[in-house]
Every structure is written in structure tokens, then in C-alpha cells.
């Protein structure tokens, strides 16, 4: 069993059907990409062609897309980090609560009212923004590291450690932010709302940049490949000289960092945050995107690109349901169907 018969076949005869069949069975992202393309075609059809000119149709189509992408950018960034976490065989349930803590911190720092932390120190404008962003990123990184330490050093199972963190972070935030409504300076909102041409696409750009960086990390760096080794066979990874604990710790820290970026995007989009509801269910959406994108919940296998596809599939489906006029409470059910269907679809692959 040295050469793959399918592979030689594809070199000899370039029939489309054979190429398709080979790609379908050998490339785990192929079926996901096909599913996404079908969804996009469907969505385009549903949007309709009832426009005066091609230009106005295209305008509507693009605007619809920008809306979809922008609305999902924060969760999508979290989903990228979640992919790494799941690839190590772990899980992070605390992302929604981490979002709220880091979001609250950024608002406290920026507050233009009397309690404003940076304002009280006489810092405002651009320097205040820079300081806020750096402090919030660092804080997110530390919270992630804290979770990572409890998992690696404390040997607490990831599910339990992050379940605990989820409860603690949100509860503490809600308590301390009770009756306090910080006002974020309107200039800060430019971070998410700055227009390029006539398009408000900054969150999409952040998502794209982070996706490209993490794609590179997962494919080309020692850290990225060690994640796969640890998740696929922890014992073998250890016996190959990989510092398993360090890899896991860094993955959770990275997760915290990405969540804090998502928090800044969220705060700068609307200038406020609902501390009791923001980020609720975010962990499940992130996990769903990763799973639809082909990430194995048992660890070892995962694709950054797949998670981007997965996020898009779920987002486009939501948009479709919206266009179809499906009642909001029923939409969640469709999401559930998609997640299970995606895993069933991937089952066909070798299990050995």
C-alpha cells in the first residue's frame, strides 16, 4: 500500500468526474467548500434579480455580504482560536465571559464620564486608545494563560476549567459593572466603523488579517504543527521532545488574546456592551464553526481555512433563513442540523 491508486488515476485521466471524486475523498476541505458554494448560489438566487441595472443589483449583493461578514467578525475571530484549542484535544467554554470581562475593562479605561480611568490620569484621545488596546490585549492574554495554567499545571480537565472560568468571569463583571454605564468616546468607534470608500469593513479586515496569520501559524510554524502533534498523540509528542504543557498553555493564552480583540471590535462597533447577555452562546457558535469546518473534537485534526468556511456557512444560512422569513426561534434548529450534517458528511473519511 505504498502508492495511492486514486492518485495515479487522476494523473492519467483528467476527467472532471474523477477529479471531483478524488478531491471529495482526499481533501477534507473540498466538501465543505462545495457546501459553501451551494449556499452562496442559493442565497444569490433568493436575493433575486429584481433590480434596474446590474450595478444596483451588485450594490445590494455586496451590501448584504458586508453585513453578514461584519456581524460575524467577532465570533469568527474567536472561532479561529477555538480551532487551535480543539486541535489540542481541549475546549474553551469561557470565551463569551472573557469577552465581557475584557469588554468591560476597555470601557472603564475609556469612559468619558467622571469614573473614566485614563481620563482621570489626564490621558485622552489617541494615546488613551493605544493604551486601552494594549492593556485589554494583555489582560485577555493573561486570563487565557490563567485558564491554561489550571489545565496544564492543575490538571483540571479543559471542560471543567473553562466552565468554572465562564461562571466566574461573567458573574464578577456583572457585579462590578452594576449601575455603571461607561461612555466610550465616539472617536474610538472609528476602530470598527471607519469607512473605506463607502464600505464599513474594518471588522472584516481584522478577521481576514488574523485568519491569514493563524493560517500561516498552523501550516508553517513549529507551534502550529506541535498543536497537531499534541492533539493527535500526546504521548508520542512528549516522547518526541515536545513540551506538551507549554503548547497547551500557549493555545489557551492565544485564545484569550483573540477574545480580547473580539471584545474591542464589539465595543467599538456599538460603543456599549450588555454585560449579562453579550457573548452568551459565543462558545457554542465558535465550536460549531470549527466542527463544520472539519475540526475533530478529539483533537489532532483541524483547519483554519475550514473554520472560516464553517463560519461562512453558518452565517449565510442565518441570512437565508432571514430572507425566507423563518421565525427567529426556529433558526437555532437549522444551525443544529447543519452542525450534525457536517460531521456526518466528514464521517466518510478514514477512521483508522
Amino acid at each position, binding site marked *: 500500500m*505504498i502508492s495511492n491508486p486514486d492518485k495515479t488515476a487522476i494523473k492519467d485521466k483528467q476527467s472532471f468526474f474523477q477529479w471531483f471524486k478524488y478531491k471529495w475523498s482526499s481533501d477534507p476541505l473540498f466538501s465543505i467548500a462545495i457546501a459553501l458554494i451551494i449556499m452562496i448560489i442559493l442565497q444569490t438566487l433568493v436575493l433575486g434579480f429584481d433590480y434596474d441595472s446590474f450595478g444596483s443589483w451588485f450594490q445590494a449583493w455586496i451590501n448584504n455580504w458586508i453585513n453578514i461578514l461584519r456581524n460575524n467578525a467577532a465570533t469568527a475571530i474567536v472561532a479561529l482560536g477555538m480551532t487551535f484549542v480543539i486541535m489540542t484535544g481541549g475546549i474553551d467554554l469561557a470565551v463569551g465571559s472573557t469577552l465581557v470581562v475584557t469588554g468591560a475593562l476597555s470601557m472603564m479605561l475609556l469612559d468619558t464620564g467622571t469614573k473614566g480611568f485614563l481620563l482621570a490620569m489626564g490621558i485622552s484621545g489617541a494615546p488613551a486608545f493605544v493604551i486601552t488596546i494594549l492593556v485589554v490585549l494583555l489582560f485577555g492574554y493573561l486570563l487565557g494563560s490563567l485558564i491554561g495554567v489550571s489545565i496544564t499545571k492543575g490538571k483540571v480537565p479543559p471542560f471543567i476549567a473553562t466552565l468554572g472560568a465562564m461562571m466566574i468571569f461573567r458573574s464578577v463583571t456583572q457585579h462590578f459593572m452594576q449601575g455603571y454605564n461607561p461612555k466610550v468616546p465616539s472617536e474610538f468607534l472609528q476602530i470598527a466603523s471607519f469607512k473605506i470608500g463607502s464600505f464599513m469593513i474594518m471588522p472584516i479586515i481584522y478577521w481576514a488579517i488574523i485568519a491569514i496569520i493563524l493560517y500561516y501559524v498552523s501550516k508553517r*510554524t513549529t507551534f502550529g504543527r506541535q498543536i*497537531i502533534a499534541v492533539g*493527535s498523540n500526546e504521548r*508520542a509528542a*512528549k*516522547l518526541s521532545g515536545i513540551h506538551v504543557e507549554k503548547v497547551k498553555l500557549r493555545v489557551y493564552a492565544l485564545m484569550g488574546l483573540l477574545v480580547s480583540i473580539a471584545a474591542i471590535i464589539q465595543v467599538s462597533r456599538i460603543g456599549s456592551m450588555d454585560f449579562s447577555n453579550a457573548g452568551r452562546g459565543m462558545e457554542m457558535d465558535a465550536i460549531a464553526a470549527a466542527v463544520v469546518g472539519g475540526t475533530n473534537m478529539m483533537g489532532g485534526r483541524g483547519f483554519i481555512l475550514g473554520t472560516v468556511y464553517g463560519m461562512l456557512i453558518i452565517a449565510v444560512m442565518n441570512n437565508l433563513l432571514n430572507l425566507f422569513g423563518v421565525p427567529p426561534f426556529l433558526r437555532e434548529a437549522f444551525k443544529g442540523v447543519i452542525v450534525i450534517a457536517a460531521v456526518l458528511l466528514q464521517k466518510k473519511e478514514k477512521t483508522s
Partner: protein
Amino acid sequence: MIEMRNIKKSFGSNDVIKDVSFTLKNGEICALLGENGAGKSTLMNILGGIHQMDSGAILVNGKEAAFHTPKQSQQVGIAFIHQELNLINDLPIYENMFLGRELKTKRGSLDLERMLQETEKIFKQMDVNLDPAMMVRDLDASYKQIVEICRAMMTNASFIIMDEPTTSLTDQEIERVFKMMKTLSEHDVGIIFISHKLNEVMQICDRYIVLRDGNLVAEGNVHEVNTNDLARFMVGHDVRTERLNREKQIGKEILRVEGLSNSRFFRDISFSIKEGEIVGFTGLLGDGRSELFQSIFGAEDITTGKIYLNEKEVKITSTQQAIKEGIAYVPRNRKENAIIKDMDIIENASIVTWPHFSKKGTINRQKHKEMFAEQRKALRIKMGELTDSITSLSGGNQQKVILAKWLAAKPKLLILDNPTQGVDVGAKEDIYDIILKLAEENIAIIVLSSEANEIIRICDRALVMYHGVIQGEVAGEEMNEHEIMRLATGGQRASDKGGIDRNDIKSG
């Protein structure tokens, strides 16, 4: 009485059992002996209904029986106590006794009371002093064996197969199991006792049969032979033991360990190895050699003792540190310990050196490809594309890829744990060649193997372990299968009068 007549069994083209016949009488304890791969387990699995024989007949009390499932075997009164015990740790003894055939009340709930009483009854009958309400988790390994035996007796077993029951037991626990076996034989139960420990066979068994390469090569009464005879039967005289030669250039000392102990697996281990030397470590299952070298490699803990590398004392606490110090460890059980199935061949072959050749965290793929291209030729790895899955390779080629990843790290000390496990004959010879060549390149090599033949063929000298201690060292003419088997089963060295002096072993 059980009679097995002209049993034959093959797996594919591999004849595992070639025409074996024997009988077991009631009330008799019969030892089944043989080296690893001699066919012991296969023969017993046929009797236990796990495998089907290709031809032959099994007669139980004169009546012909054919077993297609373990259940059918149990129904005629044969119980198979496996090495991995079949008990649920989190249930009390009496519930374990009725696992799968629970007693129910009229209303359909579990009749715990009656199960408890029945268990007490059988314990009394078998003279077992044990509280049936205890959790199985709280029992030591010998009592777990006893619970399994009592469970078998409850189903009216008249023949019991015990597969290496004493491997993981302490001396005291072994006594307990032996007492149980005596009681069983008094109850007219026939026992087949599979063991590697010849002293135990001498102590407990009435009769012995010896398998070698699927043939029954010897049988008789235990009191007519001694352990030396048994070891000779197991090994045979016709085994190929030609030693592979190489240009020997022994250099300076690479590794020395003194009084190394770990709380569970090994104690007071001292030895040393020099550049260009090939030293074997052998013994039977559970001798602690794998754990010993995993500890030296930093993957397990060491309680006491000292490790010297190049005459300098080091404390190795992690595998990364061990690699930095120039140690490489090719583990046993490739699938569990070495293969990363979600990665392709080139990645599996380069994982150890990723940090070494990376620039700012980015893996230098070109460098690894160049290195692997050389190794692929040198190690004669047969494979397709570099990006094919590691699982697409045969066992031998997988093992060579694992070797390649360690050679890329340029080790000074190479530890090979069962290097030819699950490897076909051709690849085996290849691996021997590679080992000899590496020794010529001045690498110090330690080979861990349970195959005495392998040790004899490639090693300069061998240390034999028994129950976590070094039982003796053999070299030259003394390094033969007979002597190794004797030490591995707990015997003393022929030339050692009055025990072993560990300082002798250390100086090697």
C-alpha cells in the same frame, strides 16, 4: 478431562499451531511454556472459543466439542482468566461476581441480597477470606485474580486457563494465588498455567508442556526436570544465533547511571555504556526496562540515583532536555508512543528537529526535506510521496521513519525499545544493519528487547532484568539464549556463587 487432538491453526500464510495434541486431567495443574510467539496464546484462545482451529478436535470428558464463541467454551466448563482482568473497579465484589448474569427479583430489580449470599457461599466453599461488599478497586491484584477464579467456579467451571497470572504480583500475592490454585485442584479442577517464571512452575505445577514455533516439543512431569531443562526446551538447540560482526571502536564513556530507582518500576540500577558500544537490555514482560529508559529520557520520574553523561552529572526532567543532551529514545508500541497519525511522513520524520532548524518559529521545510532525502536512501525506506499519511506505510517502514527523526537530531546515545516490534523479517535485518552502522559511527546504542535472539545477534553484551532489578550481565560465550532465559526467569548467574555483586555489573 480435556483432550486436544491434532490442532492446526494459521493466520494467513503464518502457521501458528502445527499439529499439537495434549490432554489435561481433572485436578491437575499443567504448565504451558514457550517463548513469545511460540503459539501459547493462540492454542489457549482456541480452547477458550476466541479463535477457531483450522483442523483437529477438542474432546471434553470424551465428548467432541466445537467452540465458535467464548460462551460455548464456558458452557462446557472451561474458564479463561485473561491477563487483563475482566472486573469493574467501581462495583462491589458481589456485583462483579454476577456481571452479565445478574440475579433479579420478581419485580425486575437487582436482587442484591441474594447475590451477596451466593458470593459468601462460594467464598466459604473456596476458603477465601474476603468481604463480598468490598469495592473491587480496593483489592490488590492477587485478590482480583481470586475473585475472577471464584466467579468462574460459580459457573461450575471444571477447567481453568490462567494466562500469566503472576506477572504483576508481589511474592506474597503470588503465594495467595498459589494457595487458591491448590484448593481448586483439590476440588478436581484442571488448571492450565501459562507462565514465564520457571521457578513458579517448579513450585506449583504437576505437569508441563512446551511449545516452540507452533510445535509441542516437550511434555512430562515437573518433578522429573529442573529449570535448566525447561529453559532448554523453550529455546531449543536449532535456533539461529549467528552474531553479526562489525568494526568495533569502543571510545570514551557516554552514559553512567548509579543506583537509579523509581518508586514503582525499577530499583538500584547501575550500569555504563561507551561510544560505539551496543548494549542489550532484556527480560520478560514487566521487568521494568522500558520504564527505566523512559525515566532516563525524562519522560518518567526518578526517585533516587544519579545519571552521568560524558562524566558530568545531569538531572533530566523533560524529554526536550534529554534531546539537548544528545539522547534519543525510539519507544516500544509504535502506534501508541511514536506515530502521529494526523501528520504526513515528512512531518513525522522531522518533528524532533523542528525547533532546531526553525527560523523565528517557522519550520524550515527545505532543510528537513534535504535531510530526509538522504536518510530515505540510507535507511532504505519504501514509500510514496513525502506528504502521504504515515499510516500508509508498512510497520517496518514506519519504524524506519521514526528512526530517521531521531537520527536527524544527531544523538550520542540512542535507546531503541523493541526496535523490531511488528516488523517483517526483511525490514528486521535492515534495522540490524542500521544499528551496527550507527555503532561504527561512534554512537552508543542501547537495545531493549524481549527476544533473546535479537540481543545475541547485535549486542556486545547484555544486562538481564527481572522484576525491576538487573539480575545479571552476560557477554561473549555466556550470552546465549539459555543463560538469558535463566536470568530472566529469576535464576542466578551460573558463574556467580552466592549472589550478585552490583559493583561488578557496573564496571561491565
